[in-house]
């Protein structure tokens, strides 16, 4: 049970972090470098999962993706498959909960890149895409990595929305935080402790490694 929770958590969190990294950076770029009317409104909506209690977010996810949900009912009708109580749901929950953190970090990191550098790139004949990947992204990378690390940590510890959308099914959707909780409640303190230690060590290791990488460019 312990190892299945560990492996499941790693799988879920890796995928969630990847999704969050890509989508969070994309929206962060949109908010940082583009002007449009509903901009701050969009920012508020994207920040919601961070501000609402996880259970409320989980509730909205079920409302959307459950078998009778606004979106879920069509998926169920067409494929007979519902995302609720699957490991994919755990990925969705973790992604949604970590997403606002990444968007905020990305917006700040990309926004701090002097837009004159982008202007220079255009004057040298490069397009938007190339400019983003060769100039904006490298200059924002520190902030983006920091955002990724925070998102990873958030995804790893995600409990509330996961429990609601994915349920607590050992081997299938029981991530480490859920396993710790269950072990504790059922009196299995040793198992709870063991899992907690693994979770802590993993988190510290990832954060340490990432910090090493992102600070390797610093001089004394």
């Amino acid at each position, binding site marked *: 049970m312990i190892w299945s929770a560990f492996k499941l958590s790693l799988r879920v969190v890796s995928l969630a972090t990847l999704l969050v990294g890509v989508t969070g950076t994309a929206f962060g770029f949109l908010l940082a470098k583009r002007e449009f009317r509903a901009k701050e409104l969009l920012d508020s909506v994207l920040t919601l999962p961070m501000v609402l209690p996880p259970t409320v977010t989980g509730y909205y996810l079920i409302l959307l993706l459950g078998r009778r949900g606004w979106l879920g009912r069509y998926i169920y009708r067409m494929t007979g498959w519902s995302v609720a109580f699957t490991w994919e749901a755990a990925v969705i929950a973790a992604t949604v909960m970590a997403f606002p953190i990444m968007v905020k970090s990305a917006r700040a990191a990309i926004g701090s890149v002097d837009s004159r550098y982008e202007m*220079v790139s255009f*004057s*040298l*004949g*490069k*397009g938007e895409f190339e400019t983003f990947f060769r100039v904006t992204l*490298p200059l924002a990378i520190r902030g983006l990595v920091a955002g990724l690390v925070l998102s990873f940590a958030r995804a790893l510890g995600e409990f509330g929305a996961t429990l609601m959308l994915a349920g607590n099914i050992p081997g299938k959707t029981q991530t480490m935080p859920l396993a710790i909780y269950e072990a504790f409640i059922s009196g299995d303190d040793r198992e709870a402790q063991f899992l907690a230690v693994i979770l802590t060590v993993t988190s510290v290791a990832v954060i340490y490694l990432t910090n090493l990488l992102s600070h390797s460019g610093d001089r004394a």
Partner: protein
Amino acid sequence: MLSVNFQKEFRNGGGRSFKLDVAFTVNHALTVLFGPSGSGKTTILRSIAGVVVPDSGKIALGDRVYFDSSARLNVPMRHREVGFVFQDSLLFPHLTAEANVLYGMKSGKDREKRKRVQELLDLFGILHTLERFPRELSGGEQQRVALARALASQPALVLLDEPLSAVDVSTRSRLLQEIVEMQRRSNIPFIHVTHNATDAVRAGDWVLILDQGRIVQEGLPLEVFNSPHSVRLARAVGTENIFAGTVLSQSGDDGISLLDLKACQLAVSFNGLAPGTPATIGIRAEDIIVCRERITQTSARNLLQGIVKTMIPDGSKMELVVDCGVDFKVSITRQAVMSLSLQPGAVVYLLIKASACHTLS
């Protein structure tokens, strides 16, 4: 041949607006766009480059139309092939000097491109900066790399926006020379924006004077700077002393008249202005000579006694304000100040040639 004709209006929050309305053509190799800060020079450059979109007008380089409001045409920046050098070099901080210069280069094999970069940097004498990052370079080195980067992309036009402003005094002169050399070598038209009159004169085949959003005069640099036509232009080119007075007496055979400034009088070269006519003249601060003693055996038609009011250092010069009944701004070297032991309160004599007093309309 670059033809520029456009209008753009800027509104700020206070309801005030600044209108830029210019029309000129650039036929020369090294053109200077001169004017005080806020006159719109940078906006003109940015409009040519495509950073700023004018409200109306047309901008074209030869038969390539960059902007035409009547045809609703606006070529995006990246297709205009315009090189840009800024006041702060804006070199990409995460790339080495070599990578920076390589950035804008188009097709070609890697090895050839690298070779070209080395040649360019060598021309500037900064080959040693190849592997270094911008933060490790001096201001002058950065600007050279920036110019190399702009040239490497083989543009049709190079725009320089006050490239020397942030460079230290000792490097400026050399760098200015190198800019001129690079222009000659590359044979690409350069447009150089500056608010420094000396730079404009030293590095310009043609100068356009900009003031409050309009071109007020254009011509050969020496002519324009030494003979401003109007008060407005005089202010624009930095004539520090502008006085309004009344003609006292008519010119004799030598074409000199006396101008009454109430607190003092000046001999100026007018022609045929009747006594009693109001007139305005301008005198550049650098054209006034300062003496410690009253010298009478000189060719200068004006000798005014005055007291030094203030002294303000300005680079290698010192700007003095001397009260001769009317305040005169005088610019002399700091060495001169020292050897004459000048200080506020000192009594001095100002020597001014009649021909240094330009008539302004």
